[in-house]
């Protein structure tokens, strides 16, 4: 007997439902085109020379032209006013260095300290931990507005403004926020028996945390690290507001498109800069999606 495969979610549709389906399908198709076409246009235009672009801004390139990518390297450097020094020019390598320092150190410290906080509150249940947890939930709901002026004034007084070390340190980790809650939930799910067995064997608290518990939440840690890296790679805001003397590649691109008329940069050249910035993050994102980060359990109970 042949068994007909049906989609259990669909069922029989009324006329109105069919109209809904057609309208939504057309709308989503138009929306999808609106999402993809500007990106496609940007990539195609980045391979046009200015004459091709001027003649036909929206068509496909008549020939692949790499000149924009060559010239953008010399056009991207930014000039920044540094207190006590004057105007300083930062090249691509300088911006790349700043980007890598921020993109590696900030997510690493932030994720690690957040994991520590979640371990202390969720797993060790330290005295006062419940209060901190409830406080964190309240802070996530209650908006506190208007502290930016006081923060800016205070950072300037403490010489923490335009200070990379300070910026990395003061944004490291918290006992509230989505990352904390996810670590908290993951750690609470791990049976206490693992820690108990290790304690009986004489393991220290540090050994238990690092060698037994941490590998079990490594996948969560790694995902936050990757996402933090991607966020920091694309972050122009930190350089714009807090670290004007430490421009990143994203900041360089952001500033470049504003000063493009001064640099006589053409639209294809600007778009080639965007494509350069887009490609690493797209590759990394695809790697996160495709690489299975297996949870590592090193058999804490069996030793």
């Amino acid at each position, binding site marked *: 007997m042949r068994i007909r495969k049906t989609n259990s979610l669909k069922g029989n549709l009324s006329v109105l439902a069919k109209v809904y389906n057609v309208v939504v399908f057309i709308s989503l198709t138009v929306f999808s085109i609106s999402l993809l076409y500007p990106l496609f246009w940007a990539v195609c235009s980045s391979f046009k020379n200015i004459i091709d672009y001027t003649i036909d801004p929206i068509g496909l390139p008549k020939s692949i032209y790499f000149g924009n990518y060559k010239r953008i390297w010399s056009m991207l450097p930014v000039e920044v006013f540094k207190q006590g020094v004057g105007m300083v020019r930062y090249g691509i390598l300088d911006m790349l260095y700043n980007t890598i320092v921020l993109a590696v150190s900030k997510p690493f410290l932030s994720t690690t300290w957040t994991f*520590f*906080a979640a371990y202390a509150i969720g797993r060790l249940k*330290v005295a006062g931990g419940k209060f901190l947890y409830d406080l964190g939930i309240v802070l996530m709901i209650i908006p506190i507005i208007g502290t930016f002026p006081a923060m800016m004034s205070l950072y300037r007084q403490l010489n923490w403004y335009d200070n990379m070390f300070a910026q990395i340190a*003061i944004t490291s980790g918290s006992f509230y926020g989505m990352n904390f809650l996810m670590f908290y939930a993951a750690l609470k799910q791990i049976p206490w028996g693992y820690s108990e067995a290790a304690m009986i064997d004489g393991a220290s608290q540090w050994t238990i945390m690092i060698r037994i518990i941490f590998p079990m939440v490594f996948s969560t840690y790694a995902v936050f690290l990757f996402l933090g890296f991607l966020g920091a790679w694309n972050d122009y805001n930190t350089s714009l507001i807090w670290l004007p003397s430490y421009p990143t590649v994203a900041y360089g691109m952001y500033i470049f498109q504003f000063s493009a008329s001064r640099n006589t940069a053409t639209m294809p050249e600007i778009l080639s800069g965007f494509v350069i910035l887009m490609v690493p993050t797209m590759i990394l994102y695809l790697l996160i999606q495709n690489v299975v980060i297996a949870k590592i359990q090193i058999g804490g109970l069996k030793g």
Partner: protein
Amino acid sequence: MVKKMSKNKNFWGRRRARENLFGWVLLSWTVVMFLFNMIFVNFGSIIMAFQTIDKLGNRTWAGFDNFASFVKQAISKDSTLGLAVINSAKMYIINFVICNPLYFIFSFYIFKNYLGSKTFRKIMMVPSMVSSMIMALVFKMFVEGGLPTLYAFFTGNSAETFPNLFVDVRYVFGTSLFYMIWTSFYMALILYPNAMNAIDTGIFEAARIDGAGQWTEFWSIAFPLIWPTISTNLVLGVADFFTNSGVSVIFYKFAAPVQVQTVGYFFTATVMNDKGEQSYPMLAAGGMVLTAITTPAVLLVKHLLEKYGPSED
């Protein structure tokens, strides 16, 4: 026996003390940062709200002058701040109140795996691979560079007759609003179907057996079951009302036209444009006023949505 029990009690007491000590060492940095960023900075902001700062950086007591000045500007339609309040309200009402139900209607289509759903899901993930800054700048470049040509192609008019949507004051707000809705739409099309996937398909099958149509599945099953996700979105929108600066910083840096400024953008741009800090006290006072308004509003909206929203029963 009593000695042995008290020895055990001492052991567990020492162990617990060691755990607490270790735990607080782990917590130390995050607690110090919390004390600084939340307590110390907020305390400084409260003090600043009652001061004036002159051109030389001297601070004097100002009483409630800053509060009065902020409120006066916020309720005036002729001031930048007053316009920013109106813009923030428009963006919230249009994006969260009007568009949110539409996002849900479209998300239901994707959840039901109708024609093209898998392709649409994959396409919605594409902007997530690209940073929000790049998406915004590509959008801006396309609107300035590609859209006039498309306009000329479809209408036969010259591309030069197409207005610059980022400069022409008639269109700047609409352009920013469109961008906000456009990005909110694809994020909702990721968030809501994922929330609906958690619903047991057996519920839909049982409903269909009982003769339920698509509208019943949508309104009586899917909507109540993902109501927590929708209501969280609405509550966060209220919390974000005065802090959301939109995409104006990306489009305009700190020189956006007044027609497109929101309250969040106004705060950021004023701080960044004022190196002498003279406007900081008024902003600090304004922050306190807005916090006093937003906090009960968030709690009230949360309460109302929980009380009057659909229940899973």
